[in-house]
């Protein structure tokens, strides 16, 4: 069987398994980031282009907590999303909330501008080469899976983000709060008439979406260079993921996130030069054949 696989793929099977696994790990980041975007778009109708900057802020806040307050990885995993989420709440109240009545484009431009400004401030303050952040002692080391060497930390990233994605999906689909959220998406005035404070719910949803980005940032800090442009590199791909999954579809963004991570991983074996482009090729094809995305409602 394995030999058969090797013959048809032209790549040694252990290497192929390794690449699938690595693709899944990258997919975990795509899934978490696109999840936050989908939640925000679903309820606020805002295409949150600040998401990359907020992912980067999560990583930086983790670094600051360690360097300035001596709070390690586990503390940062809870505190960084709260802190960055709080800045999201402020941004939503002060600026984004004024744009709900206008076209999508205005929200996109505003959040894009805010993202550039945040990035600029961090670049001025910390430079571009980045800061060191260590893998926590409990998760360092690796398992030898036979076909590849699997860092424990990467395994943790996959499991943890799966749990987070599932939890978010459950909250939105299976709880009363989620029902309010979904109802407010459909018809906000009606939900408000039932005595639900919709503006506050919207603010907190934005905060939660931002917190998800920051959480992904903390997860990324030990394995990627913590630098101001780390979000920019990822966010364009994540937008493609959201578009392919179907704007606003929670489950769609999670499944597409993991799926495209795997596709990208395989491209890295067969045609490495194209690995940065393959997701956009898929996006173009999906937009041509299913404009609402794979899981979106037309």
């Amino acid at each position, binding site marked *: 069987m394995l030999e058969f696989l090797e013959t048809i793929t032209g790549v040694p099977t252990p290497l192929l398994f390794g690449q699938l696994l690595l693709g899944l790990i990258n997919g975990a980041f795509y899934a978490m980031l696109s999840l936050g975007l989908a939640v925000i778009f679903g309820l606020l109708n805002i295409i949150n282009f600040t998401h990359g900057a907020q992912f980067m802020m999560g990583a930086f806040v983790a670094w600051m907590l360690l360097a300035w307050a001596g709070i390690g990885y586990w503390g940062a995993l809870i505190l960084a999303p709260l802190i960055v989420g709080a800045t999201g709440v402020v941004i939503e109240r002060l600026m984004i909330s004024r744009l709900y009545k206008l076209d999508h484009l205005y929200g996109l431009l505003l959040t894009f501008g805010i993202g550039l400004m945040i990035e600029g401030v961090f670049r001025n303050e910390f430079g*571009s080469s980045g800061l060191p952040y260590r893998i926590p002692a409990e998760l360092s080391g690796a398992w030898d899976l036979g076909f590849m060497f699997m860092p424990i930390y990467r395994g943790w990233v996959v499991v943890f983000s799966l749990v987070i994605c599932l939890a978010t999906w459950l909250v939105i689909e299976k709880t009363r709060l989620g029902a309010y959220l979904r109802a407010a998406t459909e018809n906000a005035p009606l939900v408000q008439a039932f005595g639900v404070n919709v503006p506050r719910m919207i603010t907190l949803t934005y905060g939660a979406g931002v917190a998800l980005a920051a959480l992904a940032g903390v997860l990324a800090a030990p394995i990627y*260079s913590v630098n101001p442009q780390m979000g920019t590199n990822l966010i364009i791909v994540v937008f493609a993921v959201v578009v392919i999954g179907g704007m606003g579809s929670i489950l769609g963004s999670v499944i597409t996130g993991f799926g495209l991570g795997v596709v990208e991983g395989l491209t890295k074996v067969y045609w490495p030069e194209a690995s940065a482009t393959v997701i956009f090729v898929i996006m173009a094809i999906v937009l041509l054949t299913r404009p609402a995305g794979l899981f979106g409602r037309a």
Partner: protein
Amino acid sequence: MTDINRRTVLAAGAGMGALPFTRARAQAANTIKIALLCDFSGTYRDVTGPNELACVRQAAAEFANRGFNIEVVYADNQNRADVGSNITRTWFDTGGVDCIVDGGASSVALAVNDVVREKNKVYVNSSSATSDLTGRACSPNLVHWTYDTYMLAKSTGGATVRAGGDSWYFITADYAFGHALERDTANFVRQAGGRVLGQVRTPFPGTTDFSSFLVQAQASRAKVIGLANAGSDTINCIKQASEFGITRRGIKLASLLMFMPDVHSLGLEQTQGLICTETFYWDLNDRTRAFTRRVAGQLQPNVPLCMNHAGGYASVLHYLKAVADMGVPQAKANGAEVVARMKAMPCDDDCFGPGSIRQDGRKLHPAYLFEVKSPSESRGRFDYYKVLQTTGGDEAFRPMAEGNCSLVRS
């Protein structure tokens, strides 16, 4: 006797109006305008950017009061060749710029090089890596100052092969610089009897996860993984190689281009024992320390000086010496002549010491092979390197005859 009519008043007024203009033009005629083009916003910002600007300004300041004015302007190249050549063109056409400093990423430098030659201005390049600048792309208007891919390949690559690393796999940034660095290093490996087992070209910019490429490299069973990339690509590779236990399994990483800010960013814990090549280190000797003290106040607080920054200073200083020697009007009129004068004059500065510029535009000075200190060896701020080996300028760079530079053949 003279009738003051309306026409004379108008003419006088016009003449008065022209006065400040002529003064401004006289001032411009006596001003040398230097323009720094490099990355101020992306991955190469720390290894060029604000620190290099501070160094260029330092050179200008040291040349103040020599009978002409010096103006320094700068721009961000966004690591894009089209942006770089457009800015350069605008600088020459409407900005009155006489000399372009640096250029940044190799792809940008090659584009800028063409524009400077076309306009017959001066181009002193500090941070670009490709050895093609003094090879097939060489120009009578260019001096390539700090280092190049051939020199890195010979120094870091050669030392790695000598230490027993005779089979290589390259992780290469997929653009002009990465290709040149891979090509030059592969040549050395083969000449030394080693083998190149393969390479993977990674998209630039836009790759953050290198684990997939590292695992492919590992599967090739090469003893050395050559990193033909720079900046955050190198940082991510080193970080992820240690995460995947690649270095612990006895595979060596050859960081073919690594700068002080990269080491600072990764921390000594992760970089200790790695070797790299630079032509400047702040703590090399009394002169480099004196220079570092002079610019210290103007640098970004968390970014250590590296050879690119020093190259910005030294190349501008030498350019200004040539300008002073031949006079401003002549220097502004003919860029190739200034570069010819720069080649004829011996170089000497605090960063690189005495040296010279070859006919093909290559600046010659020693290259140092450094080993990164362990945390316990490091005694203070930015105390990161110890010198393993010094190669003289004549030996460090590619022999002129091998470069295929048209200036040499003619």
